[in-house]
């Protein structure tokens, strides 16, 4: 009947509207909303690059005195391997334990004395270690490159993405910048 049809449509519309209103009330759960980039700040200590589950990850070692570590000190700490509490948390290093930094021939113009294991400037850094460097894994090389480059950059000696050449007893690896982006 037409009377029924006349009644039904507004009722349906009203009911739908009411349902929508009631359903949309209150504070609804939401999707993830993303904002600006994450909080970032300075660190105070020596940054080393270790491996955590196969990924290069940064750690900060507290320092007693020197707020601006030298690349050599950082390299020495890295070659010494992760500390006990770092190991407990799953940090590893692929840099072979026998590797040591050795004094290399200082370039002309630098002061004689304790020859640096890390040399070079803005154009490129050279790291000299004992032992073979060619068998080093990519991750191990990355660890060394990033640690040295980071320390050098903090000390103001070079850019962060400076190419680093690792020289060992079996020659030199091609110069590469830190792969962390």
């Amino acid at each position, binding site marked *: 009947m037409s009377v029924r049809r006349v009644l039904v449509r507004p009722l349906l519309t009203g009911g739908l509207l009411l349902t929508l209103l009631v359903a949309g009330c209150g504070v609804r759960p939401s999707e993830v909303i993303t904002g600006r980039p994450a*909080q970032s700040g300075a*660190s105070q200590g020596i940054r080393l690059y270790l491996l955590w589950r196969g990924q290069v990850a940064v750690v900060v070692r507290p320092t007693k005195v020197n707020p601006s570590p030298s690349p050599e000190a950082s390299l020495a700490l890295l070659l010494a391997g992760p500390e006990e509490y770092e190991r407990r948390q799953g940090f590893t290093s692929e840099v072979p334990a026998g590797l040591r930094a050795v004094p290399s021939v200082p370039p002309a113009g630098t002061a004689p004395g304790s020859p640096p294991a890390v040399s070079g400037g803005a154009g490129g850094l050279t790291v000299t270690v004992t032992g073979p460097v060619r068998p080093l894994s990519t991750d191990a090389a990355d660890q060394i490159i990033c640690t040295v480059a980071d320390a050098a950059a903090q000390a103001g000696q070079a850019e962060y993405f400076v190419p680093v050449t690792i020289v060992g007893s079996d020659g030199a690896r091609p110069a590469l910048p830190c792969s962390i982006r």
Partner: protein
Amino acid sequence: MTPRRWADARAFGLRVRLLLAFVLLGVTTTAVVASGSYFQARTVILQQAQDAAVMSLTDQLAQLYPLRQLPPTQEDLDTLAQRLSDREGYAVVVCRDMRAQGSEAPDLLTPQLRQAVRDGVVAWQRVSVDGEPVLLIGTQLELDRPDGASLPSGLEVYSVRSLAPEQQSIDRLATLAWLTGGLSLVLAVLLALLAAQGVLRPVRELGRAARSLGEGRLTTRLSVRGADELADVARTFNNTAATLERQVGELRRMEADARRFVADVSHELRTPLAAMTAVTDVLDEEADRLPGDAGRAARLVSQETQSLTQLVNDLIEVSRFDSGTARLALDDVDVAAAVTATLRLRGWTDRVRVDLPPGVVARLDPRRLDVIVANLVGNAFRHGAEPVSLRLRVEPDWLTIEVADEGPGLRPEVLAHVFDRFYKADTARTRSEGSGLGLAIAWENARLHRAPGQQGSLTAGNAPNGGAVFTLRLPRVAADDAGQAR
């Protein structure tokens, strides 16, 4: 409410339609406006709360720098979580596989939020915990890199904060919206009723006036209010009613004039006719002695004078009916005796076969009964064929007299006009027979007999064997005031 007004509120009458339209309009408008402002306000409230919470968290986190040790020890994490927890919420600090929480609550962090934080942005999400809305904010504590970018540190801080106060504000908004809706609904109903009243009252008055006019009260008028369409209709109605009243009045006046004229003429004719009748009586006596043409002329004059007297008497009778002055002179009458007397007086006793049950007493006007019976029987003799029969039938409330003849009966076109005044069934008929008013007078006399719920009638028809049958029906007991009801 009276039954009349209930009847007006019929299913889809104007009132209900107006009500529905107003309510629909009111509800729709309120729903749109209220829900729009509700959603807008909710968005603003939530956004402000979230932004404030994010700002507060990042401010707190900025004070943690510079980081001295990474990864921190579990004690460091616990301290950090405690430091970031306050009465508004608590913090969850995650570093790689380590985790510290500022409260005993279950883990609320969603994988999606963890992923977004791991990707290096400040992220937040609303989740529902046991029906209570909770805001989760997360960020990673990254490290500045010398080149200006930042290094992911794996240290993530999450703030868990209840949105119950915001929920309360929003619920208050919703309550307000519902209240507004309800109020507007009530208002819409009131307005609709008011509007319906405004429209319906003139319509109802118009209907009542039209009904009154239709029942013959031509003086009915409407009061015209305002200048809208309904006022136009009322004005038109009034004009129509006025015209109708004027024309009907005119017609009635003309009709009354004509009737008075007939009555006056009839009365004026009476006196000279009386004189003429006296003269023709003398002529009648002398007619036989008068020779040839003179005798025939004398007899003709006498005969025509009698006819004229009959005509004038009939006219006077008819004008009494027309002016409503005809009155019944009621008496308790033995119907059989009265009918027999009528026939005997006219010398028709031998020519009519009567069927009269004796002892039927009715209260009626005997003179008018005599006129009716005489007219019916005389009419049967003149236009039908003998034998003529008369039959009286009695019911508890009615008595019926049937006069039938054996003639050819009445043709249909005659049947419709047989009681009309001066109606001539046969145009070639000689004009000397009857005044042409007999059946009309009989019909009026029959109708004059009334009782509550009853009215006498005279009808004409044909018998199955072909003769004409006139049927007179009178109430057994006619009322005294019957004549005044006319």
